[in-house]
């Protein structure tokens, strides 16, 4: 049992699953940057009091699951989404989907994801893969961050679908219900809607936790880390920040480059040249994030580490906050062609 399915590699797993699943039901206009932009994927948040792997909880993207949900909703595509309390039910439903010819997205934990290198196997439960067939005991797997498709045995797939802990997948699977035609007009409306939502998220959330204010707030915190945490722990915190920013999935520069690519693609549907100019600001922001990562690496490698070095990094984030504020304000003022 194998579904005709095209595996396209992407930077981020959820963008990739969204893009590949939508293409599998005939939405050929969709690309990774468009999924990411329409789904309002770009974000920044530093959640205080919450720790991930004993380090700060920082994200450069929106909550897991939302990109698929929002993109399908904006394009008017009905979605089937199910969670299971029983492993048998979960496998039975998956089999039925495959029999009916649906490639399905599955939320999985990476700790027991056997094909991942050991260094990457943390208890992170919001990875997304597509199952597109089964041959005997082996499920055919398209993991969008990989160059090629792979397989998982029944037991291996069950284990990752029922990983435990924060954001436990509980066997969750999802797919677009039926083949769909998406018009250019729908694309335009979805792009505008995605941009508006992103502007609100990045500019409109009060307190120094999320959006551009969150970036500035994090910059100010970093300046205090050396005194508050000590050199070693501060280095760990910075390393965690860099991993969230640059690890597989971000496309580089904390998703800022993917967003720049989105605005260029949006321009093809909504030809207002301001979009191209604003795209350049996101490129600049991505570059600044990467410079900040180089500074952070100097500290966690132990090459530098004075208070001045922490101040430099903090100021880099303050500058990024200003640059992104300018970009999102410009986006909020864009006049859409009629």
């Amino acid at each position, binding site marked *: 049992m194998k579904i005709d399915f095209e595996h396209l590699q992407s930077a981020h797993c959820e963008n990739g699953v969204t893009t590949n699943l939508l293409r599998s039901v005939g939405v050929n206009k969709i690309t990774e940057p468009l999924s990411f932009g329409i789904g309002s994927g770009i974000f920044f948040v530093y959640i205080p009091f919450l720790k991930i792997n004993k380090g700060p909880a920082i994200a450069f993207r929106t909550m897991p699951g939302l990109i698929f949900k929002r993109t399908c909703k904006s394009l008017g595509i009905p979605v089937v989404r199910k969670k299971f309390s029983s492993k048998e039910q979960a496998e039975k439903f998956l089999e039925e989907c495959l029999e009916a010819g649906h490639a399905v997205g599955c939320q999985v934990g990476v700790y027991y994801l056997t094909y991942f290198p050991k260094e990457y*196997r943390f208890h992170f439960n919001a990875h997304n893969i597509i199952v597109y067939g089964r041959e005997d005991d082996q499920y055919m797997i398209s993991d969008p961050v990989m160059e090629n498709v792979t397989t998982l045995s029944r037991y291996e797939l069950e284990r990752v679908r029922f990983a435990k802990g924060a954001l436990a997948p509980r066997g969750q699977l999802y797919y677009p219900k039926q083949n769909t035609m998406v018009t250019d007009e729908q694309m335009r409306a979805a792009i505008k809607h995605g941009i508006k939502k992103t502007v609100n998220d990045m500019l409109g959330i009060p307190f120094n936790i999320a959006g551009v204010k969150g970036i500035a707030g994090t910059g100010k915190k970093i300046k205090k880390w050396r005194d508050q945490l000590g050199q070693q722990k501060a280095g760990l915190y910075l390393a965690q920040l860099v991993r969230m920013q640059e*690890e597989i999935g971000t496309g580089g520069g904390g998703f800022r480059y993917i967003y720049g690519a989105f605005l*260029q693609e949006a321009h093809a549907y909504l030809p207002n040249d301001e979009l191209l100019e604003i795209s350049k600001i996101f490129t600049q922001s991505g570059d600044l994030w990467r410079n900040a990562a180089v500074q952070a*690496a100097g500290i966690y490698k132990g090459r530098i580490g004075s208070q001045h070095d922490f101040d430099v990094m903090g100021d880099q984030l303050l500058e990024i906050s200003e640059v992104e504020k300018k970009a999102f304000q410009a986006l909020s003022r864009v006049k859409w062609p009629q």
Partner: protein
Amino acid sequence: MKKEEIPQDDGALNKLTREVVYALDGNGKYVTELSTGWNVKATALDVAWKDIEERVAAARQKVINKEASPLLYFMELRLMDIAIVSAYTGFWKWTIKRHMKPAIFDKLSENKLQQYATAFNISIADLKTMTVYED
């Protein structure tokens, strides 16, 4: 970032796949390119693993000193925290904290030990003796 500036360093992910990076071509248009890694983030991952190794070694010493039961060691080794151990075993968090005391751990039933052994993917004998067979 320009296409030519994409780092092609070594990294742990490289064993599995190259990753997609977005960058600008000569005309300022975004394109995707594959990258083998970037040393800045490879070191960030090294820093995280060095910390884990230190925590595992510290936990092992605590068990040897009879300050903790082997549950602490395997929790650290499996990169878990009490909440994750609780999710995999079904025990309450406070129960697990109690079981981390050596005197109480020593009196646990086979049944309870098996729940921990399953969660850590080991045998009961290895759980008790802190034995690990791996790569």
